[in-house]
C-alpha cells in the first residue's frame, strides 16, 4: 500500500525559465534536469546506502571540482541511477523566485517519475521536457511536431518516495538536527529509566501493602486503625500499671532482705505504697541509702522506726 502523504502539497516544476510565483503554504519541488547531473550504472549493489556511499566516486568525472555536490540514488529496473545536485544553487534559485526555503517540503528529481514524461511537458516557448531513451531530458520544441499536444504538471507527478529535504541553514534553530536528536534520544532513555524505576517502586508499594494485608488477616479485629488504637491504648495502660505493681514488689525484696519488716502494703494501678519497720537505726540508714537507687519516694517516719516507700505512675 502506498500512502501519498506528500500529494496534498502543490508540486512545482523547477526549471530555468519558470515564472515567478508567490506561495504561502508548503510545497514540493520537482527538479528539471537543469538542476542535476545524472548517471546510470549496472552495479552489483544491494542497498541504497551502499550506492550512496560510492556516488561521489561514480560521478567524479562528470562533476565540477569547485562545487560541493550532494547526491541521491534510486534504482530503475536493474540499474542504479546516481544524481548529483548543487544544493546552494537550488536554494538561491528558489530565493530569487520568491520562494521561502522554509516552505519547501521535499525535493524530487524529474527522473524519479520518468514514465510521466512519456507525454512531453512544455517549459516555455522554446523548450520542452520529454522522456528520451529512458532519460528525462530537455529538448527544443522545434524538435517536436508543431501539432504536438503537451501535458501539464500536477500533483500526480509527485513520486511516492525518495524525496530529499534541504539542509536547514536558514532555520532559526539554535541547535542542529543531529545534536537535538542525540540529546532527545538520551532524554527519552532517561524517561524510560525513570518510568521503569517508578513502576518498580510501585510494585514494592503493592508488595508492602500485601505484607500488611497478610498480617491483618491474622488479626482481623485489628484491621481498622481506630480499633487498633483503642485496643493498643487499653492494653498499654494495663501493661504499664501492672508492670509498675510487679516492679514495686521486686524492689521491696531488697530492704526486707536487709532486715526491714513489712508492716503495710497497698498496691493500686497508679500508686504503690509500702510501710517498712526498721528495728535499728543502722538498718534504717542502710535501707534508706539503698532505696535511693530504687527510684522510689522515701520517707522516714515515727522517729526513724519506719520507712514509707511510694511509687506513682
Amino acid at each position, binding site marked *: 500500500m502506498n500512502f501519498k502523504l506528500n500529494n496534498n502539497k502543490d508540486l512545482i516544476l523547477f526549471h530555468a525559465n519558470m515564472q515567478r510565483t508567490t506561495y504561502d503554504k508548503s510545497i514540493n519541488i520537482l527538479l528539471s534536469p537543469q538542476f542535476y547531473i545524472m548517471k546510470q550504472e549496472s552495479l552489483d549493489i544491494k542497498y541504497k546506502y551502499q550506492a550512496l556511499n560510492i556516488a561521489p566516486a561514480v560521478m567524479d568525472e562528470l562533476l565540477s571540482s569547485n562545487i560541493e555536490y550532494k547526491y541521491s540514488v534510486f534504482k530503475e529496473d536493474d540499474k542504479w541511477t546516481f544524481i548529483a545536485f548543487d544544493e546552494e544553487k537550488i536554494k538561491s534559485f528558489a530565493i530569487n523566485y520568491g520562494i*521561502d526555503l522554509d516552505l519547501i517540503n521535499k525535493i524530487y528529481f524529474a527522473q524519479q517519475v520518468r514514465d510521466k514524461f512519456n507525454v512531453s511537458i512544455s517549459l516555455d516557448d522554446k523548450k520542452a521536457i520529454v522522456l528520451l531513451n529512458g532519460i528525462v531530458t530537455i529538448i527544443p520544441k522545434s524538435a517536436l511536431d508543431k501539432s504536438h499536444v503537451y501535458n501539464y504538471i500536477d500533483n500526480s507527478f509527485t513520486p511516492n518516495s525518495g524525496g530529499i529535504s534541504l539542509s*536547514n541553514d536558514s532555520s532559526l534553530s539554535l541547535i542542529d538536527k543531529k545534536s537535538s536528536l542525540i540529546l532527545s534520544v538520551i532524554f527519552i532513555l532517561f524517561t524510560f529509566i525513570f518510568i521503569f524505576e517508578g513502576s518498580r517502586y510501585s510494585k514494592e508499594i503493592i508488595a508492602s501493602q500485601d505484607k500488611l494485608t497478610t498480617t491483618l488477616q491474622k488479626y482481623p479485629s485489628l484491621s481498622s486503625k481506630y480499633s487498633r488504637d483503642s485496643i493498643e491504648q487499653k492494653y498499654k495502660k494495663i501493661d504499664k*500499671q501492672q508492670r509498675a*505493681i510487679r516492679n514495686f514488689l521486686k524492689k521491696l525484696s531488697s530492704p526486707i532482705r536487709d532486715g526491714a519488716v*513489712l508492716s*503495710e502494703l*497497698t498496691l493500686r494501678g497508679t500508686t504503690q505504697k509500702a510501710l517498712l519497720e526498721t528495728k535499728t537505726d543502722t538498718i534504717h540508714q542502710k535501707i534508706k541509702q539503698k532505696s535511693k537507687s530504687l527510684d522510689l519516694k522515701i520517707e522516714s517516719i515515727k522517729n526513724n522506726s519506719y520507712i514509707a516507700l511510694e511509687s506513682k505512675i
Partner: protein
Amino acid sequence: MNINLKKYQNEIILLTSIVLMLFAYIYKSGKIDSFEKGKIEVASSISTISQIASLKDLWGDKKLSAKVPKLKSLVNSSKVKLFSIKSKKLKAKFVDLTIKELTILLQKISNIAVEIISIDVKKNSETYNMELKCKW
C-alpha cells in the same frame, strides 16, 4: 507541520523529550515518596499490630481462668476467708499469713498475668492479712 513550527523543529523535538523526561522523573519521585511513606506506615502498622497482639496474648491469656483458682490452694484453707470468682473477677481475703506464705502468694500473683486491681496487706502482730482484687 506549520511553517513557523518547522523552523523550530529541533527545539520542539528537544523540548518534548525534556518534558517527557521531567514527567517521568516526577512520576518516579512520586512513587519513591509513596514508597518511603508507605514503608514507614506499613512497618509501623505491622510493629503496632505485633505489639498489640503480644499484649493481648499476655493480658488476655485464656488459660488464666484455670490458673487463678490455684491461688486458693497455696495456703491452708483455714486462712482463706474469702475466695470469690465472678465474671473473670477475683475477690479474696487471706488472714494470719506467715511472711513466707505472704511472699509465696505475692510471687504467684505476680507471675500470672492477672490485672491486679488492688492488694492490701496489713501486719497483725506477727502475721499478715491480705485482701486481693484482680481480673483477667
